[in-house]
Each structure stands twice: as structure tokens, then as C-alpha cells.
């Protein structure tokens, strides 16, 4: 079964190719079902591989399946190979599992869209790329997937490209992601330089044995982190993720909550020995610091958003920050654990919000919702489960993973723990606010009926079965998901023992003092969560206290605006200056002079001859500079 690991990415790829060729003939809904079937089958295969791996001893739980040798350059040999080990299979399990659910959901959500089959085309391509990313045996295969998911994300954000904002958002995502890609590339070349290979195994081995120089290891780790910051939307590159909500909601759930954005975390865990063992000791502090800062920062913004999806987007950024806090604190198991539970409940929340948007005929403003619980009972019920999970209420999944991260953060530094705690409070607060605004209180959609124009008679309705089924499944997972890693004893820490071969050496052992007070910390976390919920209840349901939603938070601390002002102003200017040369002087030959022709013929002749002269003059200038250099070399002997 282990050798069949190549089937996992191959199936979505097959789906992609079939839809590419036959997409138009298949049409709606068949291409949707085909795509779902392919991802679902991939999930089944993954489960098979998973069971096979479970039956092996801990030492044997890493299987490399080489498809072919790809790049044999001198001493560098890169294979197109897949690695089946506990970490990659865990990732593959939830990528294919949640992927299939979201595919199913999309059949209902995208109903009637003229580009129905194209949507599934991209979706399957995305799942394929994501699986390449997580299953890659070396950095190059991962990079292939990394580029692939980036491109798919771009294509899917701009899916409704006729909307200007969607096109801009796509562009933004692309540009910021390229910064991350650059980091990854640099890390790749340094790795090759340091260990003569791009495979993870030798890199991690070298890091464990200390054969990489500390400085090199730090550069590799931090460059990988730059890549992760771009992909996983951390400060200061988080900008694209909230904008990415312009894409269809299933895309937000799949790519921008559950899978792609966690690729950065995955990468850090995959190369964990480099950061945890080989790099300078302050390197993890940077990761933890940025993670904690992002978590808090994004949570404050989420408090004041009115768009149902924007709240969830900032919440995602915040939760990803949590995961990096875990990585920086050496809690790699907790990072993966939180990644999994987060994938469950955040996908659930996004799909729930999609269902609400679907039911409200495309309305996303929470101020125009309210009391939807009665009209959309299943959506409402599952959304509430998601809310409890993210708010950290025991025994829902989110509580256990968040608790473990906080424990490690406390162990690293009480300051990090404090930041995490405040974030938890805010998380509970803004999620409660959202639930109340959407599902409770007074129905407000009638107030705005007039604005809706053509479909003025908004009547929210429950969504079709294809959309509701995934909600129910994910809700179930959000309830019991914590069971994979319970902190009661060593035997209940199933995830930890399962992941042991991958991260055993890099996981930071807790100080004994922290271990002792872990139930106290858990108690505090629960209290904080309840406090957040209660606070929001008082403010938004009882309306005892006036809501504090300052404009500075609603506008995301004006960070986005500042950046775009800069990019639109001086940044763009300097960027264009380099292009100006060719724009004005060179481009002028065809366009500029062409424009002049319309004006006066006499000017043209002058302009024309002047332009070729300009070329020659510039070439001559270059020649003079070159000669000057060489003469200088001659004189300076």
C-alpha cells in the first residue's frame, strides 16, 4: 500500500486533466462530481497508506517512493520522489479529507455559475499541488507544489475577475506570495550549498548532528520562515489574505483557511531540526515573536469587522499566528495539532458563512443579518459548534490544541503566554459577536430590503444537501477532533507518539514546573474564553455596554492603507522610474512618436531621427563608461 503513495496526487491530477479536456462536455454538475470523486478516492488511498504506516514500527515509518531521477547534476541528485511519513500523511489526510468535503459543498455553492467546470478544474489542480507540497521528499518537489498552490490561489481569488476588487486582490496575493517564494528559493540554494542535497532527510540529519554551521542554519531557517510568512499570511505580509476573501467561499475555506495557508507551518515543522537545534538560539524567538504579534494584531482587527468573511479571514491570520507561536516555542506537535483542529472548525465556519451568504442571496454584511438560526437550523447549529470550538470551550477540539500551545508558550516565556491569552480572549469575543449578529437578535434583513432592488424579497433559506452534509461532518469533527491528542497521559497523546519519528529530536521538553501547573493554565484559558463570550454577550445581545469598534480597528490599523499609499505613491514612482527610461525614450519610438504624428508632421521627423540618435547616444554612453572603466584599470596598475 505504501508504494501507492504516488496515487494520492495522481488522482486529482487525473481529475484536472479530464476536466481540462472534457470540461465543457461534462458541464454542470458532472464535472463537479468527477472532481469530488477524484479527491475522495485520493482520501481513501491516503487512509490506506495511513493504516499501512500504523502497522509499522516507529523506526520504519518513513517510506520514500521515487518516481524517477529528475536532476542529476554533478554531485546534486534530485528525485521526483514522495515521502510517506507520519507528518506528510497527516497533512495528506486532512488535505484530501477536507478537500473532498469542500468539493462536495462547492457543487451546491457554485450551482448555476457559468464557469462551473472551470472552478473544479482549478480546485483539482489546487489539491494536486497541495499534495505535491506535503508529500514531496525534497525541497524541489515541495517548491513545485508551493508554486502550484500559489498560482491556483491566484486564479481562484480572481475567479470572478470581472469584479475589479477580485482582480486587484488576486494581484496582491500574487505579489506578496512572490516575496515568500523568494525566501524559499534562497533557502533552497543555501541548503544545497550546505549539505549538497535538497532532500529533507540529509538536511535534518545534518542539523541534528551539528554538521551545518550555525550561521548557515540560521539563514536557512529564517529564509524558510520568510517563505512561510508569505504563504501563511503573517506580519508584515498578511495583507493578501483578507483581500483573498473576494474568491468564492469554498475557496476561502479550502485554500485560505484549511490547507494552503498552513503550508508555511508545515514547512517549518518539516525542517524543524534546523530551527530548533542547528540555528542560533534567538532564531526561534523571532518566529515565536512574529507569530504572537500576528495573533494579537489580527484578533484586534477582527473585533471590528462587519463583513462575515472578513471576520473569519482575520481570525485565520490570528490562528496561524498561534501556530507559529507554537513552532517558535518548540511545540511542533501542538502546531500540527492546532493546524488539524483549526482546519476542522475554520473550514466549518467558512462553509457555514458560505451557506449563510448563499441563503441571503449574496449578502455579506452582518449588520443586515440576524435571527437566522430559525430559518437555517442546520447551518446555525453547526456554526455554533464551530464557534464553541474556536472560542476554546472544552471539550471541543479547539480547546485542546490551544491549551497545549499556551502551555508551551508559558514554558518559553510568560510574555508569550500573556499575548496568547489576550488573543484567546479576543477570539472568544469576536466570534461570539459574529454568532450573535448573524444568528440571534432581531432579523434585520427586512430593514434593508429596499436596497436589494431586484431581489428585494430576501427570504433566507436553508441550503441544499450537498452544502449541508459537509457542514455536519465537519461539525462532528470539531467536537471530537481533540481526541487525537489529550494531555491526560502519555497514551492519550496519540498525535505525539504518531509524529515522534519526525519531530522527536526537535520538540522542546517542558520544564518540570510548567508540567505541574498545566491544569491551572488550562483553567485560566477556559475562564478567559468564557469571559470573552460573556463580554460579547453583554455588549451585543443585552446591549448593556456600548460596543467599542473604533475606526482604527475596522480599518486594520491603517496598515493596508499605508502600504498601498506607499506603493501607489513613492513606491510606484520609483518602480516606474526604471521603466520610465524605456517608456519614454524607447517606447517613444513606436507609441510616443505615433502619438506625435497626430499632432504635427514636422515634429515627427525630428522626433524620429532624434530617437534613433538617442539609442545610439545611449549605447555610446555605455561604451564610454565601459572604456573609462578599462582605462582606469590600466592606469591604476
Amino acid at each position, binding site marked *: 500500500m505504501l508504494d501507492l503513495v504516488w496515487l494520492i496526487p495522481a488522482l486529482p491530477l487525473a481529475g484536472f486533466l479530464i476536466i481540462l479536456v472534457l470540461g465543457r462536455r461534462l458541464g454542470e454538475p458532472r464535472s463537479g462530481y468527477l472532481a469530488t470523486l477524484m479527491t475522495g478516492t485520493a482520501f481513501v488511498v491516503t487512509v490506506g497508506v495511513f493504516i499501512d504506516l500504523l502497522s509499522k514500527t516507529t523506526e520504519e515509518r518513513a517510506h520514500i517512493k521515487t518516481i524517477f531521477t529528475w536532476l542529476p547534476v554533478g554531485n546534486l541528485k534530485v528525485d521526483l520522489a514522495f515521502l510517506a511519513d507520519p507528518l506528510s500523511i497527516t497533512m495528506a489526510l486532512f488535505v484530501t479529507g477536507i478537500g473532498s468535503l469542500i468539493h462536495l459543498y462547492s457543487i451546491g455553492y457554485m450551482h448555476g455559475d457559468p464557469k462551473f467546470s472551470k472552478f473544479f478544474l482549478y480546485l483539482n489542480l489546487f489539491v494536486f499541488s497541495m499534495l505535491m507540497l506535503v508529500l514531496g521528499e525534497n525541497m524541489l518537489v515541495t517548491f513545485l507544489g508551493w508554486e502550484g498552490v500559489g498560482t491556483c490561489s491566484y486564479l481562484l481569488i480572481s475567479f470572478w475577475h470581472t469584479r475589479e476588487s477580485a482582480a486587484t486582490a488576486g494581484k496582491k496575493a500574487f505579489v506578496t506570495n512572490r516575496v515568500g517564494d523568494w525566501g524559499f528559493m534562497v533557502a533552497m540554494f543555501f541548503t544545497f550549498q550546505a549539505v549538497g542535497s535538497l532532500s529533507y532527510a540529509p538536511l535534518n540529519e545534518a542539523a541534528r548532528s551539528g554538521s551545518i554551521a550555525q550561521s548557515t542554519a540560521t539563514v536557512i531557517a529564517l529564509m524558510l520562515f520568510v517563505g512561510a510568512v508569505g504563504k501563511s499570511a503573517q506580519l508584515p505580509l498578511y495583507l493578501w489574505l483578507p483581500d483573498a476573501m473576494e474568491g468564492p467561499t469554498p475557496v476561502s475555506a479550502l485554500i485560505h483557511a484549511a490547507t494552503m495557508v498552513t503550508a508555511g507551518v508545515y514547512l517549518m515543522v518539516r525542517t524543524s531540526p534546523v530551527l530548533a537545534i542547528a540555528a542560533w538560539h534567538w532564531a526561534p524567538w523571532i518566529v515565536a515573536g512574529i507569530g504572537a504579534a500576528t495573533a494579537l494584531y489580527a484578533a484586534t482587527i477582527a473585533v471590528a469587522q462587519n463583513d462575515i468573511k472578513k471576520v473569519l479571514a482575520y481570525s485565520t491570520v490570528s490562528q496561524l499566528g498561534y501556530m507559529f507561536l507554537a513552532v517558535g516555542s518548540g511545540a511542533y506537535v501542538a502546531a500540527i495539532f492546532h493546524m488539524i483542529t483549526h482546519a476542522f472548525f475554520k473550514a466549518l465556519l467558512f462553509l457555514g458563512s458560505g451557506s449563510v451568504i448563499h441563503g441571503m442571496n449574496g449578502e455579506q454584511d452582518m449588520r443586515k443579518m440576524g435571527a437566522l438560526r430559525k430559518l437555517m437550523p442546520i447551518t446555525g447549529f453547526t456554526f455554533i459548534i464551530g464557534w464553541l470550538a474556536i472560542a476554546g470551550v472544552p471539550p471541543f477540539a479547539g480547546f485542546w490544541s490551544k491549551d497545549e500551545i499556551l502551555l508551551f508558550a508559558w514554558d518559553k516565556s510568560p510574555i508569550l503566554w500573556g499575548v496568547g491569552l489576550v488573543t484567546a480572549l479576543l477570539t472568544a469575543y469576536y466570534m461570539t459577536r459574529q454568532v450573535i449578529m448573524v444568528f440571534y437578535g432581531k432579523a434585520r434583513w427586512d430593514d434593508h430590503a429596499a436596497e436589494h432592488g431586484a431581489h428585494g424579497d430576501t427570504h433566507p433559506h436553508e441550503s441544499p444537501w450537498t452544502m449541508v452534509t459537509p457542514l455536519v461532518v465537519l461539525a462532528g469533527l470539531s467536537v471530537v477532533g481533540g481526541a487525537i491528542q489529550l494531555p491526560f497521559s502519555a497514551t492519550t497523546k496519540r498525535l505525539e507518539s504518531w509524529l515522534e519519528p519526525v519531530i522527536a529530536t526537535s520538540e522542546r521538553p517542558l520544564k518540570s514546573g510548567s508540567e505541574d501547573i498545566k491544569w491551572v493554565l488550562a483553567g485560566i484559558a477556559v475562564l478567559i474564553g468564557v469571559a470573552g463570550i460573556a463580554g460579547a454577550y453583554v455588549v451585543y445581545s443585552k446591549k448593556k455596554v456600548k460596543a467599542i469598534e473604533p475606526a482604527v480597528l475596522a480599518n486594520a490599523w491603517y496598515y493596508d492603507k499605508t502600504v498601498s499609499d506607499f506603493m501607489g505613491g513613492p513606491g510606484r514612482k520609483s518602480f516606474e522610474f526604471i521603466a520610465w527610461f524605456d517608456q519614454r525614450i524607447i517606447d517613444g519610438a513606436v507609441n510616443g512618436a*505615433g502619438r506625435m504624428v497626430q499632432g504635427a508632421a514636422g515634429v*515627427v521627423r525630428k*522626433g*524620429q531621427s532624434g530617437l534613433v540618435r538617442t539609442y545610439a547616444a545611449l549605447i555610446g554612453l555605455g561604451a564610454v563608461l565601459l572604456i573609462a572603466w578599462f582605462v582606469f584599470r590600466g592606469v591604476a596598475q
Partner: protein
Amino acid sequence: MGQYLPVVCLMILAILFGVVSFVASRLLAPRRPSAAKQAPYECGIVPGRELPERFPVSFYIVAMLFVMFDIEIIFIYPYAVSRQELGSFGFWEMIAFTAVFFAAFVYVVARGALDWGPVHKYRRLDSAVSAERTLSSTIRRVGTEGRLDEKAA
């Protein structure tokens, strides 16, 4: 430097001569312009058409052929001088050169460069050239007047 002295002297003399004649004619010649004097000189006949006059392209082609043969001569002449020394190698080299040259000449002739008869052999260029400039280009096409006549005919 000594060996270049005559060259330098010659150069200076040549420049001097040009400058002196120019200045002298400026200073000495009387200036009484009239319309007849300013008209282009056409063998003493009053010009019949506005300039610029357009010459048939065949003239240029003949001129080019002339240059081509010039080059051939320039190449063959030194060979003729040192034919003995170069021996059979030089002979075959010249054969090869002449063959290539001849191929080009055959091509030119076969394409009708030396046909001076009525225009039937010329390619029609009407569609290719218009008197107006286009907005997309800055090339100024000169001398299309004759072709326009041809089109009208």
C-alpha cells in the same frame, strides 16, 4: 611617428585647400541671385517637373551591381598579381569565390533586375505603399508620387 609625416602633411594640405577655396569663393565672387540661377540645373533646359524627381529603382540596382563587380575586381586583382605564389590553392579559392558571386548574379538577373522593358515584370507595389503615413509608424515614405500616377493609369 616619422613615417606618418607625409600622411599628416597631405591631410593638412587637403583640409587647407578645401577651406581656402570655400572662403575664397565667398570673398571674391559677386552675388547677384536671380530666379533662373536658383532653379535646379538641368542641362540648360527649364525644369519640367517639381522636384524631388523619382528615379526608377532599376538605376539603383544597376549601381549596386556595379559595386558588386567592383568588389569582385578588387578581390581578383591581387590574386592575378600573386597567382604564381598562391598556386592551385589560390586558383580553387578564386573559383569558389566566383561561383558564389555568380550564383548571386544569376539570382539577381533571374528576378528581373536587368529587364528594362515595359513594367510587366515589376511587382506591383500599390498595396504595399501608400502616400500617407500611418499612425502606427513613423516612417516617412518619400517619392511615392510616380507610383500614384501609375495607379491612376
